[in-house]
């Protein structure tokens, strides 16, 4: 069973998001996404201060199988990117929910986070898309 932590929000494109105490939102890809991609060889991350529209492609994760866009479901401004991934993209495979985070953003409206799937809904979504 793929790991789906309780305290995160999820998108149908297999991103996870977490609201931090300082009001920023951390974004990464899920265990399921990293498994489907296989070992990553390259991660492209956005510059700090870039403004993102909802649904905009904000990063690229590339494995030997495929290069996939990562989308931000929220409008906001990029606050930080995980620079460690430049040399060690495999962190996303080893630790998708912790060391392998992709970026942090300051959301225009943190409330929009509530519209995303919670862990239960995402688990159901994964089960449905399995068939």
């Amino acid at each position, binding site marked *: 069973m793929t790991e789906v932590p309780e305290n995160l929000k999820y998108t149908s494109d297999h991103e996870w998001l977490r609201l931090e105490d300082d009001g920023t939102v951390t974004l990464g890809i899920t265990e399921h996404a990293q498994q*489907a991609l296989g*070992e990553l*060889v*390259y991660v492209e991350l956005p510059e700090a201060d870039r403004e993102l529209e909802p649904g905009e492609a904000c990063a690229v994760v590339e494995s*030997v*199988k*495929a*290069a*996939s866009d990562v989308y931000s479901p929220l409008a906001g401004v990029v606050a930080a990117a995980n620079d460690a991934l430049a040399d060690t993209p495999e962190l996303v495979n080893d630790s998708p929910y912790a060391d392998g985070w992709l970026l942090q953003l300051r959301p225009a409206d943190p409330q929009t986070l509530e519209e995303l799937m919670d862990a239960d809904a995402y688990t159901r979504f994964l089960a449905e898309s399995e068939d």
Partner: protein
Amino acid sequence: MDGLIFERARPGRGSPGLAPVDPPPSGLPADRLRDATPRLPEVSELQVVRHYTRLSQQNFSIDTHFYPLGSCTMKYNPKVCNALAMLPGFADRHPHAPESHGQGFLECMHELQEMLKGATGMQTFSLTPMAGAQGEFAGVAMIMAYHQSRGDAERREIIVPDAAHGTNPATANMCGCTVREIPTGADGDVDLDALRNAVGPQTAGIMLTNPSTLGVFERQIPEVAAIVHEAGGLLYYDGANLNAVLGRALPAAMGFDVMHINLHKTFSTPHGGGGPGSGAVGANARLAPFLPVPMVGRGEDGYRWLTEADCPQSIGRLSAFMGNAGILLRAYVYMRLLGPEGMRRVADYATLNANYLMARLAAAGFRLAYPERRASHEFIVSLKDLTKATGVTAMDIAKGLLDRGFHAPTTYFPLLVPECLLIEPTETEAREDLDAFADALIALRDEARRDPDSVKAAPLTMPVRRLDDVRAAKQLDLAWRPAD
């Protein structure tokens, strides 16, 4: 592995029998001459012969094996196309020779332009793009030039379905456009509602492959064309899968304004491994003025080059001369051999072979990505049930096929279908060979259920086993250096 030819070298060894006895002086000034001996392997003539003969024996090619690499159309290319394209009158022709000295070549190119018009319904063809990607680039650049010529420069968005080849969004990007992706419906056709929502005054056009990379014919193509045209956009046809409809369905009649053809795929050039290719581009009356030059025209004094002076609205040149002339000649010979009736038979048998193989595999219990649909020239099998039950992936099965004497189908493309094999048998395979491939795939599936580890260990009989593809992607340093 037998090692690199450098590793066989010994100082002083050589192949004097082939060297010029008394090389003439080069005439270059002294400061332009190298003062150190170039680092070439010092080997005997026999060592060279054995080395390259061995390498050629390690080739896995259409001349030795069934090669059902989906979306690549790895079909047999008649040797006569190669032989005729190599005639000295063609091969030794200088590209700067005056038109009067190359009328035969120019006539072939002119006839090829005409035949491609007949096979696609387009009004005009330019043969100059040197690869499929360059043909795509030409097509989208023409769409942008058209909008600009009308003062409609705000149209900068290209719509691309999520099933498209990766080159489509890359092309749009290269032409300065933004890319808008639209989803595919569960039946493999474009999601029309999503298309209606996507079009607007920003729409420059749409890039479509038909049949699509999902191996199905886009049944709603008239509706797609109407939606895009009504919004003021144009339709680009990616000719990657033309083999399935050759002579049977005309892209111009489907509503496309501009297209490219991978002549190297559909019209008889051994390809794969990076070229050379040919992405001839054709257009309807609306876009024809923007075609790249040179083209070949016919006047009172015979055939002549059409250049910027004749085509002032052309997007310009993509190659110094007439593209990859040798590839164009092969395509010309191939089309002359087939004729219109032969071209229809290409499409008929490419489609029949794909559907036969698909039916055999479905009957053996393989899961089809689009079981309700008839295959075009290729079809998709998803192995995700097998992966879930045994841990054996599509890649493991692909490697196992190599041991059984078959080139692997395309794996993990299109990205929409998990653990997929995209299988394109092409029209040139006999039924016995299709059966042998189906038998091998079935046997491999059964072996995976019985003994998954043995399939995961494949290939066992190839010159190289599993490559470290992650390391290969991360460490791009391929230079060989002698051991000190």
